[in-house]
């Protein structure tokens, strides 16, 4: 495995919803400038794991966290950490495109405005839209509603919106699962592009997608107690060609899902 700097590190992470243990004792690392894929069967807690990296789980009243998550060496669940501040440094893209019912421009500018951006907002919006490979398609209609865009364009808009606040890490929760194959391809190319600048953690149901876009892959599983756990984490190449654990092999060869 690559020896790059670790940006995100989960240590014996446990997440409960009420009394239900959703993931147990997960150790995980995401390294700088890499795409790390989280794969595993439904209900294995990969989304829960992803959402504990930017404390989105906090929005669920009954959630409890055990263990720790470190972002650049600092425990993000420490009481001195402001989750709002944290989320502006760890961006997120969701499963379904969820643009605001505002103009294309205002969608991208939203994060800048709430974070008190003092630079040129127009410039930042253009930069983000270019990064998300959407600028050429929307530059003439920035004041039109975001809902006028196609699903794939909307998702790239959501990516642009997340990039606008210049996060260090971008978390993606099955970002292409609601899109058609062509739009999916565009998103995958975009993810490869973005990995030059950003550290990306992506949850995906689609193993080909994980193989195509990621540098490292973590495989999670779930047993009868319904608590997800990590089975294996390694270079994507190794996970898909030569998995160490037989459960990983069974999963990637499609013997269960």
């Amino acid at each position, binding site marked *: 495995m690559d020896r790059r700097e670790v940006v995100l590190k989960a240590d014996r992470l446990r997440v409960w919803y009420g009394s239900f243990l959703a993931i147990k004792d997960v150790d995980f690392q995401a390294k700088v400038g890499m795409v790390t894929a989280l794969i595993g069967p439904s209900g294995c807690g990969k989304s829960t794991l992803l959402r504990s990296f930017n404390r989105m789980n906090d929005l669920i009243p009954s959630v409890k966290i055990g263990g720790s998550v470190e972002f650049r060496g600092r425990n993000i669940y420490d009481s001195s950490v402001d989750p709002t501040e944290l989320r*502006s440094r760890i961006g997120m893209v969701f499963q379904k495109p*969820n643009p605001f*019912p505002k103009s294309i421009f205002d969608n991208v500018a939203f994060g800048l405005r709430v974070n008190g951006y003092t630079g040129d907002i127009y410039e930042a919006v253009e930069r983000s839209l270019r990064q998300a490979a959407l600028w050429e398609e929307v530059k003439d209609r920035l004041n039109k509603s975001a809902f006028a865009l196609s699903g794939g364009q909307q998702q790239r808009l959501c990516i642009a919106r997340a990039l606008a606040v210049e996060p260090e890490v971008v978390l993606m929760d099955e970002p292409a699962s609601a899109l058609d194959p062509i739009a999916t391809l565009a998103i995958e190319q975009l993810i490869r592009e973005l990995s030059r600048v950003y550290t990306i953690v992506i949850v995906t149901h689609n193993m080909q997608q994980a193989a195509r876009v990621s540098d490292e892959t973590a495989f999670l599983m779930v047993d009868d107690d319904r608590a997800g756990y990590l089975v294996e984490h390694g270079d994507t190449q190794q996970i898909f060609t030569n998995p160490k654990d037989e459960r990983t092999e069974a999963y990637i060869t499609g013997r269960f899902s």
Partner: protein
Amino acid sequence: MGFEIRRPQLLAARPSPASAAGEAPLFKRSSSREWEGRAARYFFFLCAALSIFTTVGIVVSLFSQALAFFGEVSVWEFLTGTRWSPILKPNSYGVLPLVGGTLLVSALAALVALPLGLGTAIFLAEYAPDRLRRVIKPVLEILAGIPTVVYGYFALTFVTPLLQIVFPDMIVFNALSAGLVMGIMIIPMVSSLSEDAMMAVPRSLRQAAYALGATRMEVSLRVVVPAALSGIVASFILAISRAIGETMLVTIAAGATPNLTWNPLDSIQAMTAYIVQVSLGEAAHGSLEYNTIFAVGLLLFMMTLLMSLLGQWVVHRWREEY
């Protein structure tokens, strides 16, 4: 396979002469069912028709009697005159003092109800933990269920004396007290409809905003309220129409002095209060004096109709898809 086993059981369970005879006519309509369906249709049509006939009846009676009034007083004089004195001579039929009274009280009510109602709705939809919401919502519903006559006496016997501590010269019947209490009265209308509109905003939009580093306040004011705006504005309009049409409270607390004024400390007379006054008085049926209430009633009807049309337009125009 399962349903094939179940099916005969289902038929057997139904007491029908056909199955007792051993043959099961699966899709034959029974005549009693058909009759039932037809009867239900007529019944529900009747229910719907009743309210339509009532509305038509009200409009016809308003128009015909108001027409009698406008035979003697010109519409222009009625709508632009600034003195309303249909009983005391010299008679004058300018409705503006009554309209002004109604609008003054409604404006005061709106001043109280719109910010407080919206604030309550934001609190309930975005801030309140479930347990607290389960307490507050029923309390608001109780507030909405209090008879308006109770609000009237609350204004007259409780709020007015309190206000007189601040404004010692204020007379007992005044627009301020009635307006403030009416504002409290229509808060539940604003808060409950606005909260519904905000609860209908998808969670995914809130999550998107939170994930960008927005605070709860920013999520509420910059995402949820704009997305729910059409519902919120509709609740405002509905609440204001309610205030315009409200009768008991203004009759009891705001006075019976047609008075074209913007001073809320003055005594005024609202349109509805005037109608009450004349219908309880001794004006002879069919007299000009008696017919004034239909002219005022028609105008009131037009005003609330205009408000609800405005409401529909706003909902349609500002509808944000999400």
